[in-house]
């Protein structure tokens, strides 16, 4: 009998105990769990779990750091500028500077409004980008940040990588289940790290960044 740990939120699946309340009797083996089973706490896929005590294969092949030419301000797209402005608006709010926060929000709104809409958007484009992030850009950025011991960058990368893996899991599920995935259930976004929660009973804290879930925002349909 073994235990499997969710690499995103730390939830432990114990084969000895199973999850009887969810129909998995004590003694249900990991391999017997359906392939589309997800972490009951954060929604991570089975592939995001690791057997407890097993050596981690995560860092077996560390990709080399790729240094892209740094982007200067002129090269930022309107949407990137918008994110920069809304980030600064948050920073102003944290400093209790309401007037400055409103001004940055206004700029963020302006730059979002002038951003050209995506051409023929679809969900598989999202999945492609998510996979590229996880395979290449997160490892690169993490290697660069580790090299210079930039704890702030590592923190942001850890959170957003986990959230990106959750997005990947959600996109996979959505491919299979379609809109049934979202029927009669709430959808929430953590306003601190971007974690998406599907369900009605919120955990106490965010599985990724551990903020209290009153910081979650409920997403209404459009």
């Amino acid at each position, binding site marked *: 009998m073994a235990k499997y740990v969710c690499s995103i939120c730390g939830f432990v699946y114990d084969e000895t105990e199973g999850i009887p309340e969810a129909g998995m009797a004590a003694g249900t083996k990991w391999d017997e769990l359906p392939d589309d089973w997800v972490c009951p706490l954060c929604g991570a896929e089975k592939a995001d779990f690791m057997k407890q005590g097993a050596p981690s294969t995560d860092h077996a092949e560390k990709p080399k*750091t790729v240094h892209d030419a740094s982007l200067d301000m002129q090269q930022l797209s309107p949407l990137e500028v918008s994110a920069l402005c809304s*980030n600064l608006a948050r920073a102003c709010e944290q400093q209790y500077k309401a007037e400055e926060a409103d*001004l940055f929000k206004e700029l963020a709104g302006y730059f979002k409004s002038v951003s050209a809409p995506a051409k023929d958007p679809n969900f598989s484009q999202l999945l492609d980008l998510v996979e590229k992030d996880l395979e290449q850009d997160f490892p690169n950025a993490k290697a660069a940040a580790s090299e210079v011991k930039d704890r702030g960058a590592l923190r942001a990368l850890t959170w957003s990588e986990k959230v990106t893996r959750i*997005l990947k899991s959600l996109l996979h599920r959505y491919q299979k289940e379609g809109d049934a995935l*979202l029927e009669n259930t709430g959808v929430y976004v953590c306003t601190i790290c*971007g974690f998406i929660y599907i369900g009605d009973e919120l955990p106490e804290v965010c599985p990724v960044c551990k903020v209290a879930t009153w910081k979650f925002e409920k997403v209404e*349909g459009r």
Partner: protein
Amino acid sequence: MSVTKKYAVRNIRLCTKDCLCLYVCPTGAADTENSIIDVEKCIGCGDCADACPSGAISLVPFEYPPQQPKTESVVSTLNTLLRSKAKQENIAAGLPGKLAKAIEKSNRIMAEDIIREAGYMLPQSHNTRQFLQSLLEQNPEGFPRETVEKLLTVLYDQKEDKQMKENKILDNLMEAFAGESQANRKYLAYAKQAEKEGKLNAAKLFRAAADAETLHAFKLLEVAGKIGSTADNLKDGITGETYEYKEMYPAFVKEAEAAGNKAAVMAYTFAMKAEEVHAKLYQEALENIDQTEEVFYYLCPVCGNIEKFVPDKCSICGIPGKKFIKY
């Protein structure tokens, strides 16, 4: 230990209205109808934060430290991710449904966090300032220029701060001027005393030092920008003398009379009457400022009265007119 100047802020979400802050605040800054602590009144003592049972009050600095530096490799790899997250936000924005909306938001939040760690943590930082200035330079059509200008003003223009510092400098200059001026008169008085005692070397030193203090006083007044045109200076003289004879000395005389200090009453009275004469003479001089015909003034060496002719005797203190000094 931190010596940064701070002020208290209240997180209204955490506030449980126990109101201990109101009881302990020495200046009443915490007691406002909108629950926002009054920055003007707050002295940054931190008593409210210590007293708050809900941890709803914290102290934030007026000036933030410089941002932690970022290495280029970290910034460039983060920017690559930022670009990807912005793309995903854009794609999700064009898709229907709750999930797409959640993905749009999620990517925005990640993009914000990533760019924050790529060197844009503080709105007060040099990076942010440069970013705002670059927006002004590019000036794309229809973009809210005034918003950026306003931000640059409120975040970086420390006009008020500068004004306060300049006011302080002026106060210091005038305080130094007052000190040097007093020292000059004091040393002259000491020199006279020394001469009376026959201590001529000490008298000499006092006179030299008195002259030195005069030099200092002149320089200070000049730096403070308090020396104007002669017309302005005459007006200033009128204001000063008028205040002294109408307000200051009358009050002093009353106090000295009440205390029965006859010497003080006499000194005040002489000065008060002389100042009135000075004010009148300044007024006359101002009216005839372009007059070229030479005028002579005669000073009473006892009470400070000034006349434009030699009187039989001083109209204020009564000494014989022949003792007057001609100017």
